[in-house]
């Protein structure tokens, strides 16, 4: 399908170079210099992708990035289901992030579970002028009265909180005392902090360290411990991802004592320092707390990748290597059990997808993690980039990408459009803001944040859905209709 595709790797690299130069020409000098550092291609043998990352976005260019609040409320804290997360400040932030991330959970919403609700202090002008601490205290009282089965509260700061000098820590401490030591966590995730969602992840991780773990210190485990206790870290259970992962870990003989944070609870967060191993899926958003638990509680952590059968098998074996033969055998048993399913999926979809080219632009993990799943289906990722990755993400990316893969960090709307126009991939995988742009251009698209309301994509069960979805995107008959016959 790709038109006038360059044949050799040299031709590809030359094309990429020219394409980057062409795109940069549109910028004023200062921004051109800045953006040039974020655009490159992977050269075999390098230890990173030769791009700068995790620095401020250029104003006025249509960055795809969000903010620290999105990283804390939207990603890390929001899915903790038995706590109430207050979007503290004006109404908008909580409204736009209300239930849109598909963090699946089981619970009675509004009674003992609160994920898909929008609790806000709905700041008015007087709250900005006189401060919002009194209002926040009153909100906590009202929460305790109307939602008595909550297992804690977090305060997710929006921009004004840090600017008007509110002391949400003092309010949280005082109310925690008043309510018998209830966990109340102030989070300083104002949207202007940092350069993207990423700092919000970090701040949220730190708030768990300071306001959840520190309280637990010295207390015994509230559950019966076994040598096989692990915690899933960095899986937000989008469309049920953590569930189709958990089932594999349990089938190999491990006991999952906590999910961070999809379908998670405060009890699970509190239990995690007692795990034997933390298994980390989204490194970007939860490496901080994993490192902390290693240093403070001696819990080792290991990264894994549950996209596509090749990476799943590799990951199951890596995780098993931290345990005894029983678990190692368990891993092999699980791999063998699901081989028939994976083979059938590949047999069905690979002929329909083989050789198709993909361009990705996602958050902090998937720009590399999903590559193996595409390759299992015979597809090739020719361009990728992170919305909020750091250099350690680009280092890890080198293990996934091929020579000559186009790399674009914090891509702008303008650049992404030009890249796709020129490279003509068979599929673009990115977010809701990008979806309709590329579909208008006649390029098949799948949302790789929300799975386009499908999923799960993790685990063997998820891989079948992933393959089916990519096929229906690329091979939809509608792409033959975009040009009128007259």
């Amino acid at each position: 399908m790709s038109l006038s595709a360059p044949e050799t790797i040299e031709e590809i690299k030359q094309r990429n170079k020219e394409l980057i130069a062409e795109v940069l020409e549109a910028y004023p000098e200062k921004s051109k210099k800045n953006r040039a550092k974020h655009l490159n291609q992977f050269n075999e043998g390098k230890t990173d992708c030769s791009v700068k990352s995790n620095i401020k976005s250029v104003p006025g260019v249509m960055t795809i990035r969000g903010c620290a609040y999105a990283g804390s409320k939207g990603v890390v804290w929001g899915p903790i289901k038995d706590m109430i997360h207050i979007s503290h400040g004006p109404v908008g932030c909580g409204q736009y992030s209300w239930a849109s991330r598909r963090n699946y959970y089981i619970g009675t919403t509004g009674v003992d579970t609160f994920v898909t609700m929008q609790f806000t202090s709905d700041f008015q002008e007087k709250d900005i002028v006189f401060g919002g601490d009194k209002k926040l205290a009153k909100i906590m009282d009202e929460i305790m009265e109307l939602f008595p089965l909550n297992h804690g509260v977090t305060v997710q700061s929006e921009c004004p909180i840090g600017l008007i000098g509110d002391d949400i820590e003092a309010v949280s401490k005082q109310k925690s005392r008043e309510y018998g030591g209830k966990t109340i966590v102030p989070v300083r995730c104002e949207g202007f902090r940092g350069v993207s969602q990423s700092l919000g992840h970090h701040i949220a991780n730190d708030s768990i360290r300071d306001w959840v773990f520190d309280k637990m210190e010295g207390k015994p485990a509230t559950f019966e411990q076994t040598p096989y206790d692990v915690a899933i870290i960095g899986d937000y259970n989008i469309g049920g991802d953590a569930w189709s992962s958990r089932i594999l870990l349990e089938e190999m003989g491990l006991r999952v004592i906590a999910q961070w944070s999809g379908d998670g609870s405060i009890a699970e967060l509190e239990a995690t320092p007692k795990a034997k191993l933390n298994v980390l899926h989204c490194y970007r958003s939860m490496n901080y707390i994993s490192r902390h638990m290693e240093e403070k509680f001696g819990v080792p952590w290991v990264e894994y990748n549950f996209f596509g059968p090749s990476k799943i098998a590799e990951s199951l074996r890596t995780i098993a290597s931290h345990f005894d033969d029983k678990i190692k055998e368990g891993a092999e048993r699980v791999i063998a059990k699901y081989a028939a399913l994976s083979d059938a999926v590949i047999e069905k979809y690979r002929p329909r997808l083989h050789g198709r080219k993909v361009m990705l632009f996602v958050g902090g993990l998937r720009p590399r993690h999903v590559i193996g799943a595409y390759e299992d289906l015979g597809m090739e990722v020719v361009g990728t980039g992170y919305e909020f990755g750091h250099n350690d993400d680009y280092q890890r990316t080198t293990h996934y990408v091929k020579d000559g893969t186009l790399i674009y960090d914090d891509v702008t709307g303008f650049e992404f459009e030009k890249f796709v126009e020129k490279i003509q991939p068979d599929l673009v995988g990115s977010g809701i803001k990008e979806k309709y742009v590329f579909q208008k251009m006649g390029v098949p698209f799948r949302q790789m944040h929300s799975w386009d309301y499908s999923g799960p994509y993790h685990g063997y069960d998820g891989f079948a859905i992933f393959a089916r979805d990519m096929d229906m995107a690329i091979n939809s008959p509608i792409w033959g209709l975009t040009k009128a016959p007259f």
Partner: protein
Amino acid sequence: MPQNADHVLDHFDLFRQPEYREMLANKKKNFENPVAEAELQRVVEWTKTPEYREKNFAREALTVNPAKACQPLGAVFAAVGFEGTVPFVHGSQGCVAYYRSHFSRHFKEPSSCVSSSMTEDAAVFGGLNNMVDGLANTYNLYKPKMISVSTTCMAEVIGDDLNAFIKTAKSKGSVPEAYDVPFAHTPAFVGSHITGYDNVLKGVFEHFWGGKAGTVEKLQRVPNETINFIGGFDPYTVGNLREIKRIFDLMGVEYTMIADNSDVWDTPTDGTFRMFDGGTTIDEMNAAVHAKATISMQEYCTEKTLNYIKSEWDQETVSFNHPISVQATDKFLMEISRITGKPVPDQLKLERGRLVDALADSSAHIHGKKFAIYGDPDLCIGLAEFLMECGGEPTHILATNGGKAWEAKVQAMLDANQFGANCHVYPLRDLWHMRSLLFTEPVDFLIGNTYGKYLERDTGTPLIRIGFPIFDRHHHHRYPVWGYQGGLNVLVWILDRIFEEIDRNTIVPAHSDFSYDIIR
């Protein structure tokens, strides 16, 4: 193993399989510290009681599930209605990611908008540099005809002065001196998205008519025969604005659609991405000052704008409340006719007759049914009028962004109609209040946006999706709800749900299916 390559199970079915059910039950029991089942059920039942309702309505500080967004969202809604215009939001960048996602989820369309990406240093020193660099980048990259600047709460709290900043940016060469950069301060902590719409629209009028922030002479108004039309922040903007144009063309009215975003949110899939499409042109905005009158379909979206037009320019202004009913549309058309001197053509009379015909055919199914309505202030009024015309009985009308004046207006409307006798109006309340209302004073149907589905789940009240945002049903925004054709669409949406409910309630064989009728 439930998953299967030939018949792929989606999340709907996958997680209901026994393997997963057992896994999740064990997770809950062993690790979640769950609330005891009896206690959970006790509280579930308690939240349905009048006692809970009383506590719920006594809330003073906490808002739960509001039916409103913030000003900056409305700012973007208005800005994209101008030809070749990029909305430029001065403040934190995450906000813009949210507005773009929000609109894309509702319209299933791209939504272009940029941010000045202010961060901590800008919080300390102000966002001037962000404005200077940002305007230059937007101008060079996207080659817009106009950049419409609004703000987020961050820029408002630190007190950035848009007028001064834009002037400085121009003097530094970010954009040419004469380039159009209208602006409006749109603090998120005042009003709601409809306020932001109003502020940006007023800002655009002030810019073009009032001398472009003191840089050129004010326009001289020479009244002519045209009228200006403003739709307001409207979930059905695509279908509605096209329908209004059709109606005006039928009447032979000379008109200018102000902030016409009906094309940019409905571009074709034909191989080309159009960042810009349609919209009110700069020439049209300039000429609009001469219009005989400005019509707003939504009073509460355009209070400041209409006041500016009336008080500063002595133009007649007329506003409506999202007219849907036959009589509201009659009034709208008669006002247009009065202002322009053009008679309402026979074609529209025919369409009116067809809508009345449809109402006569079907209103028996609506008559006497109780409805709860929530949404933006004008839409609530339009829907209530329509229901009462069919003999429906609005019972709860709630607008999180409705104020005292709105409450009084709705009350007066109810007082004047026998079908409004048992209805209460709830300004400044949210959907958690609505939950209590639906438990303690049940109704037959609920009308609201997608978030109403949570109320449907909790209270069992069937939801008819009319409002903003609608995320979980596709393409309704392409249909008008204005004009007699629009009224017909609303009628069909309401009827479809009523019939589905009757079928659902009568479907059990040998128990209720005697009423599972083939003709209704």
